Structure formats: C-alpha cells, structure tokens
C-alpha cells in the first residue's frame, strides 16, 4: 500500500526504538519481529508481556524499550493490557493525563501463551473490543523452557517432548481462524523476513481502533536447530514454500497478501532445520514429507 510512511526497505531503517545488546540468542527471529514492530509503531508504547523468551529483553535494571513495559504472567497479558488501556482512558477522561501522553498498548507473547494458556484472556479481550495490539511471535514451541511442543508446533517436528521418529504427532492449531471467528478489528500473519509486507500491515492496523492481532512466524535457531545466519533465508522459505501464508483479516474478509505462483517444495524449508532431520536421515521419510506437502497444497487449493 502506498499511503503509509514506509514505502521501501530504506524507510524501515529510519527509526530504532529497541536498543541492541539484549541477552536474546543470536539470529533470533522473534527479536527481529519485536524490533520491526517497535520501529514502525513508534516510541509511545507500553508492552505487556507474557512469560517467554522475550521476557528476557528487560532484565533489571535495564530495558531496551523506548516505551514502557509490564511483565504480567503467561496466561493473562491480554487482561493486563485491558487494565492499562482502561486506566489510560479513565485518566484522560478525568483530565488526569493529557491525551498527548497517551500510549499504544501492545501484548507481547509467544505461541505457547497465545495458542494455549493465554487464549481465554485474549478471546475475552477481543470480545470486549479492546483497543490494543497483540503480537504473537511464533517459534512453534515453548522456547524459553527448552522447546517442548506447543499447540503451534508443526506436524512432524521434533521437540524436547516429541523426540520419536515421527516427531510431533499433533496438528498445529489454526489460531488465525479462531481469532477471525471473533471478528477482531484487524488480524494478520507476518514474518520479519518479509519486512515490507510486515510494515504495511502494522501501518494499516495503526489506523484502526479495536483489537489488532498479529501472528509472526519467528524462526528460532536454538529450538529449530539451524545456524543463526539462516534465520532470514528460512523465513523467506517458509513463505515461498507456502508453509506460512501471509494474509490479513479486515472488514470480515480474509486476503492473502503474498500469493506464490511457483511454490517451492516444502523439503527446501524442512531440510535446513535439525528439528526435521529425522525426515531425511538415515533415509528419507517420503510418507511424512508428502503428508506435509499435501497439507500445504490442500491449504492453497481450499482458499
């Protein structure tokens, strides 16, 4: 979209609102997500965090955020956001805070929280039409505790609690559809490896009042077992293989924002990651790879 301030990749380098030098793993896709989000959203923010890897961004007595931060709990960050939003509105209404001091309220959680423990509080926040941003960085597992499987873990991936030959036998929950069913003001999938798509979506959301929901696939070298420098290429492959569809929900309609004409085979994405190594060695598990491929193909046929 052209009406935004960010027209090309160079514009993205303009503002930096997240200081570097945090204790996050090298090559962390989630950190890229948070950084991009902060840069686009600006300084006037309060992040409400649920337990996860990003909790380690703000370690006493330092915070890398230009804005404010409150750690709540794994299950209730959305409720924490509601409390702050309500409080800011009350203060402004009663004249105890000037409107110029107002802040954007952002929930920052991992997938374990978003897809599981935090879902009830988030669902209720959408029900109440809370004016907030919700950013789920999805590393497809309970990363902070050593990458056990969560409800966002993909079929076939090995995790700390799915180490058999089959990997994780569950199916990734379709959180996008669950949220869409709540009719939020805005909802999108994003990935930091596609920064222009990401930026356009955040800019779109910034013009809308109400719940603005983001799920960002966040490649995780530590949990997915690949080299830190591969984060961007793996992220791009997630999109190009069709595994991570980039889409948005607005005014009751779902639109795919990047339709790949010639999708790459899922293998290209899977083979770079140690968590899928058992699909390739000691011999190729064609049955499982084909199963993953056909579920991706089916998705793109169905839409």
């Amino acid at each position: 979209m052209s009406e935004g301030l960010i027209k090309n990749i160079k514009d993205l380098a303009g503002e930096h609102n997240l200081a570097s030098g945090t204790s996050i793993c090298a090559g962390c896709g989630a950190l890229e997500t948070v950084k991009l989000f902060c840069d686009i959203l600006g300084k006037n923010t309060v992040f409400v965090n649920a337990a996860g890897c990003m909790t380690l961004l703000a370690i006493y007595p330092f915070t890398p955020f230009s804005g404010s931060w409150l750690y709540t709990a794994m299950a209730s960050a959305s409720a924490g956001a509601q409390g702050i939003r309500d409080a800011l509105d009350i203060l402004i209404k009663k004249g105890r805070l000037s409107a110029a001091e107002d802040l954007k309220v952002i929930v920052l959680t991992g997938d374990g929280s978003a897809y599981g423990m935090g879902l009830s509080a988030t669902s209720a926040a959408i029900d109440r039409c809370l004016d907030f941003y919700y950013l789920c960085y999805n590393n497809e597992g309970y990363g902070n505790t050593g990458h056990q499987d969560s409800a966002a873990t993909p079929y076939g991936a090995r995790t700390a609690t799915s180490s058999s030959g089959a990997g994780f036998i569950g199916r990734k929950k379709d959180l996008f559809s669950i949220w869409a069913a709540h009719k939020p003001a805005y909802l999108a999938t994003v990935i930091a490896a596609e920064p222009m798509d990401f930026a356009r979506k955040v800019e779109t959301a910034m013009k809308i009042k109400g719940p603005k929901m983001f799920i960002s696939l966040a490649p995780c070298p530590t949990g997915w077992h690949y080299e830190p420098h591969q984060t961007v290429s793996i992220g791009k492959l997630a999109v190009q293989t069709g595994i991570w569809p980039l889409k948005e929900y607005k005014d009751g309609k779902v639109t795919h924002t990047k339709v790949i004409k010639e999708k790459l085979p899922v293998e290209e994405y899977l083979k770079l990651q140690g968590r899928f190594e058992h699909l390739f060695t000691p011999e190729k598990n064609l049955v499982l790879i084909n199963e993953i491929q056909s579920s991706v193909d089916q998705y793109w046929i169905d839409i």
Partner: protein
Amino acid sequence: MTHQILVTGNAAAAWGARLSSVDYIPAFPITPQTEIIETLSGWINNGEMDSHLTMYESEHSMITAAGSAATAGVRVFTATSSQGLMYGMEMIFAIPGWRVPFVLVNVSRGLASPITLECDHNDILAARDSGCIQIHCSTCQEILDSVIIGYKISEHIKIRLPVIVNLDGFYLSFTREPVEIPEQHKVIQYLGEYNPMNDIYSASAPQARGLIVLVGSQYSYFRYQAHLANLKALDVYKEAAEEFTLQFGRNYSVIESYKIDDAEYCFIMVGSFSTKAKSAADLLRSEGWRIGLIRPRLIRPFPSEELRILLSGIKGAAVIDQNISFGKGGILYTEITSALYGADGNYPVTGSFIGGLGGRDITIDEFIVIAGEMREYVQKGKQPDTRLLFTEDELQQIKKIQLIAGTENS
C-alpha cells in the same frame, strides 16, 4: 450528612469502594461475592458513581488487571471469594512485587473439595504469604470502614502493597446490620485525592515493571523490601486507624480485645463468629469466669508484639480456627503460638480448636465447653491436642445418610 442504613456485608463493601471514589473495578462473579459487583455496577449505571467496571473472564485476569491498572495510575477496587481467589493466586503473589496499591475484598468461602458455598477461612489464609496486607472483619460496619482504611494503608508511600479486606460469606455477606455511611467528602478528605506517585505510564515518562532479575541477591533484596513494607504497615495501620477515629469516631485497633483487662482465660479467633465468642464470654462471666476475647484484625502484618502484651498474664487461651491446614492443624494457632514461643513473659497454655468449617455453626454451648476444657488443661499445665468441634449427633447424621445412600462399605 452521615446516615445509618440497614445493609448486608456485601453492600457495606460496595459502599466502602464508592465512598473511596475508586476509578476502576475489574470484576468477575462468584457466590457469595456477586452482590458487591452488582451493587457497584448498578450505581455506575444509574450515575451515582463515577467509576468504570470491566467484566473479566476469570479472576486470574481480573486480578492481573487490578494490578496493571494500578501500575497505570488509577484507584482500583476488586472483589472475589474462595475458588476465585485460588484461581487468581498466581497474581495475588506476583502483584505485591509490583508495589502498587489497591483493595481487594474477599468474601470467605470454604474451598473445594467437597464443594461448599459456606464460609471458612482457608481461602484467605492461602494468600497469607503473598505480601498482600490482610484485614479481617467481624461486622458490616467494620467492612465498610476497613475498605476505606485499606486504601489509606495501601497507598501510603512506605507501603504500596495491595490490601485484602476479608468478610465471612453468608454470616456477613448476606446479613443486614445497621451501618453508618460516612459522608463522601469526609472520606475523600481522609484519603486525599488519589496520588499515583510513580505508578503512571505516559509518553514522556516511560517505566518498566515486573522485570526479571537474574541473580538471587537482587531477588532477595526486592523480596525483603516487600517484607519490610508489609511489617511497616503495622505502624501505618495504627496511624490510619487513629486518624479514622478522629474523623469518624469508630475505633479499630490492630487487635480487638473484649473484656481482657482482668481476664484469666480468652478465646482467640477472627471473623464473624467472634461476636458469638463475646456473648459466650458474657455468659461465662455471669457465672464467675474472668474470660474475654482477642480478635486480631490484621493477620498480615502479624501483630506479634501487641498479641504478647494482651496475652501476658492470661492462664489459658483457646485459639479457634475456622480453617484447617491438613497435616498440621489450625493456621491461626500456629501463628499465635509462634509469636509466644521463646518470648520473655508469662504466657498462657494454648488450646487449638477447629470449628466452623464450611459454615458449620459454633454454638454458645461449644464455647462454654471449650472454656471448661481450657481450665482443665491449665490445671494440668499442659497443651491440649487439636480438637475438631463436631458432635456425636452430627456423626450419627452422616452415618445415617451414608447408610441410606449406600455409599459406605462396611
């Protein structure tokens, strides 16, 4: 003008919040607390109260929001009971570390299992070690007044901790008593306009709250700070109560004592059944006993010194616990005896009685039996074993229904 009306304990709690001009009320229903949030909601909806109430989907969320809104600079009131307090317990323990003020009213109700709607104190006492200050009430007037005093303590610059005001489900929540409603402007004068101090997020003054620490020394530092603040609340409470007496005439010492000056014996308990202990003491006194009641209003911070002063010279003290710590006994008993152990002075033989679980009545006759037993133990000079207040008749009743339902194997 001050006026007196007949209200339930729940309505008295709501009045406390209304008169304190709370800005924000995160809410979730649970019997026997519901009347509090419905009353507040009614006042807001008909314009009698300038506040905002948000319904949450759980107490875990509700208490999170109470804390988060407090970090953002508004005066917050919330209320729950029993399973709700337990469901929010993660946050009850987390939020004192944020060092923000608010008042939470807990309407005590026994915990599952079995399920009950009736009162005992295991819910509130599970929050004992959380860092929240605890005020226990025995009358409807005291509930209203304690909410107001609660804000005074909670918001004090040296405290900044949540205050839980406890009242008994059914016995107080649904019992109407005459309650004096103070004038709003006097309450505001007493509390002052809300001062958020550092608790405010704004574009020009960002803050970070609830951070992680990576070393035990920092953790110890902050935990001990919260402990010291909680202890400090004893003095702050006394000042707040004194000022309250000056403004409103009613007197709330950290421990209520009834006919203790010349007493040889006493009951020690918290909550509404203590009013029956007073009647029992009166009756016993008419038969020549020198007996009274000691009722701690503050359980956290625990008024150890004040307790020692009151108990000095008493021969026998019966601690009546409306709670039970499985595998140990009465929680209040443990608290009381630990305050006496090793202290210099002449302290009583203490007996531990568990009663009133799940709202079971404690009868005047039972208080009289307890007093008699305490006298025997004093004569023997030994601490009695823990006793459950439970009659042979009650046991037979249970056996009977079990027999009818065929639930017990022979």
